[in-house]
């Protein structure tokens, strides 16, 4: 099955572009980025703050089932143009990653379809590459943890 999401990350560059076409009118696509309860659902995180305006900011926080915070991110909004564009920063707290700059462009293709283009700029090529590898590393770590759980049950 072909993934609808495309990623362009040229070697030796410190940015990447994520594009995705949605079977949604652009207004609904944009709304998915601005309503806290909806952001919380598709990003699988708690939304502590989401101010949809220039100079506004946002804060996300994710906890594990024991209530320990495992992920915390925040950013500020530089441009907020409904159904057209959001420019914002994104910072993962308590991590070695520097804040990144994100340009989110929303474009209507037809009444029922739209495209999101997300241009992300990192502090360095190295940081971008580390960020790209994160989901793979997490997959392996999760497998390790599950394995440890399974092995400790055998004893």
């Amino acid at each position, binding site marked *: 099955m072909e993934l609808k999401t495309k990623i362009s990350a040229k070697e030796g560059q410190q940015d990447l572009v994520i594009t995705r076409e949605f079977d949604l009118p652009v207004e609904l696509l944009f709304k*998915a980025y601005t309503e806290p309860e909806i952001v919380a659902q598709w990003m699988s995180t708690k939304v502590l703050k989401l101010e949809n305006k220039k100079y506004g900011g946002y804060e996300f926080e994710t906890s594990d089932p024991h209530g320990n915070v495992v992920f915390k991110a925040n950013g500020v909004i530089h441009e907020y143009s409904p159904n057209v564009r959001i420019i914002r920063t994104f910072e993962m707290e308590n991590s070695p990653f520097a804040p990144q700059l994100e340009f989110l462009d929303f474009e209507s293709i037809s009444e029922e379809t739209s495209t999101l283009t997300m241009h992300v700029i990192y502090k360095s090529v190295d940081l971008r590459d580390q960020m790209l590898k994160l989901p793979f590393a997490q997959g392996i770590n999760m497998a390790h943890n599950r394995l440890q759980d399974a092995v400790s049950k055998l004893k």
Partner: protein
Amino acid sequence: MEIRRDVFQAIADPTRRAILSLVAIQAMTPGVIAENFDSSRQTISKHIQILAECELLSQYQNGREIYYLTNAKKMKEVADFIEPFRQMWDDRFNKLEALMKNYKPKK
């Protein structure tokens, strides 16, 4: 079970990832690998077959036994790649799309 030769499909499965971590430490026979899981030996052996076809596992023979171990070179190739990152965003966007298709305005 459908046999897929796509490495990213191969590592998307939690059991297969667990197998990879297991034999990263030490080469094992299919029987010993299967002892680490609740699934049947037959199921595990299919997982091993998929991983071997994707070259994520290499094998060698010692007497009558076949031993499997993680192919570090292939694993690194996969790790360098951006596919899991793309998969993560695709999952998120699929969720977003499904949510908004059922969206009812509050007013």
